């Protein structure tokens, strides 16, 4: 849906859901992959579809600003959301075989910052 009249619809939608402006990283940043080949394979198969696609409404890879409030929730919460799903985030991020350590590594890579202990 698009075109000028839709802006009214969007404005109403934004009012109702309390959305706000989001920053977006460059395409180069969000198309980055982990340097570890094994982790990169998981990232490409499972995470990239949403976390490198602005339309997916997920925090984008390399978007430190978008990840900041999430990182502040702590590693346990992030791990819980990754494993059990949260809002649009599907459980396990569609990586069936991922270990808890791999989930945390992937989150750290996408957030482009270390996770708190």
């Amino acid at each position, binding site marked *: *849906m698009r075109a000028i009249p839709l802006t009214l*619809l969007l404005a109403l939608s934004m009012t109702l859901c309390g959305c706000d402006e989001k920053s977006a990283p460059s395409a180069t940043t969000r198309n980055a992959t982990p340097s570890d080949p094994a982790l990169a394979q*998981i990232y490409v198969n499972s995470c990239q*579809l949403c976390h490198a696609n602005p*339309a*997916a*409404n997920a925090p984008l890879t390399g978007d430190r600003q978008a990840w900041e409030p999430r990182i502040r929730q702590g590693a346990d919460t992030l791990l819980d959301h990754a494993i059990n799903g949260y809002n649009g985030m599907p459980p*396990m991020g*569609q990586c069936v*075989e991922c270990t808890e350590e791999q989930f945390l590594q992937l989150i750290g890579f996408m957030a482009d910052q270390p996770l708190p202990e």
Partner: protein
Amino acid sequence: MSMDLTRRQLLQWASIVGAFSALTANPALGQLMRAPRLIPWRNWSGGQSCLPAARLAPKNLDELTAAIRQAQGKIRPVGSAHSFSALVPTDGTLLSLSYFTGLLDHDPKTLQAEFAAGTPMSRMGVPLKGVGQALQNMADIDYQTLAGAIATSTHGTGTTFQSYSAHVCGMQLVTANGEVLDCDSQRHPEVFNAARVSLGALGVATKIRLQNRPAYRLRERQWIARTEELLEDLDKNTRENQHWEMLVVTHSDYALSIALNETSDPATPPIPPEEEGGNEFVTLIEKLDKYGSDFPDLRRTLLNSLRHLASFDDRVGDSFDIYSNVRTVRFNEMEYSVPAEHGPACLREILKLIQDKDLRTWFPIEYRYVKADDIPLSMFEGRDSCSISVHQHYQMDHHNFFAAVEPIFWKYNGRPHWGKLHTLNAKNLQPLYPRWREFVDVRQALDPSGRFLNAHLASILGVN
């Protein structure tokens, strides 16, 4: 803060520390305590879950066959976890094909291409375009893996287009005893026929060969109209458009009509990401439901008035880009396919029920057409079909809503989508499938001890 402890408290602490020391001194218990905790598996909506003893992702065929031979208990293959029904849950071994991805082979003369079975549908379009091919039709989401989509007869829309499964012309299976079986219309044809829609009950598919067509572009046209008008114009809409469907906005009188047709026109510029997939519209009607469900007449008026705010530009692009949409709002889904001629009556009855009972739901109902095929366990076996899908937000209870609607599907001889929610078992399902026996016999021959069966599969296939 005072740390004064009574003698009684000191003794309690001492006994706890002593017990912990004894436990960790025991090698077996110590090992158990250091082992990684079991992680639950959940499907995309979160509605299905299990705690598997093992989650394996073999890296090649040798590892896969070894994993199947050595697995203790039940084995369930899992793709992208996008099935809403309980096809996957097991307390045994979950087998992921995440290392079985990519285009393996292609033939420019026959326009056939072979993919590793774990390839996500979202990653097939670009490599296929690179060899001049494209899938003949696609569903409106592409999160599924190829093996998962094939196993459940996943489909798009179009009266002259069949499901993904109907375009399979060969596959490789690893069976319950670890045997590698290559099958097509010439080699093991009875297995091939059954395996084109297998629910993952015959073995683990590793390679799938598809009959494709030359790469193409599509033009997407969308418009809002009264649902009744769209139903009255069905023949025109389905005849004049290669792919036509509608999304009926519940508790309103209107639907979004979507038509896709092949074109040689140049691609249009990409649309802003936030406008892709109509997710903002879904969010809006969710809010209208939240604040307006106590005032049904007002809600209907508001929903009906949304048509004045929306307009649509045509979109042209590569077929795989136009078919698929991003879904940012999770949901649970029930879908039945009824004989094509019963589609309008079935939909009208569902909409009347929702209005009369003021059923709590706000997700649009998806209404599509699929051409008949000849696969024993396909929902479209032997009959052109109309597929009607009802949805419920993943945080809203779906049981009452789906339970109210499901008998309407039964009345019209509907067959449930294997990957979506339903309450039928083998006793109800067998009469719906004239070639049921063909599948059951192949399954019994390939997996007599039921290694690939979980409780749901045993129930729907009638295996004790």
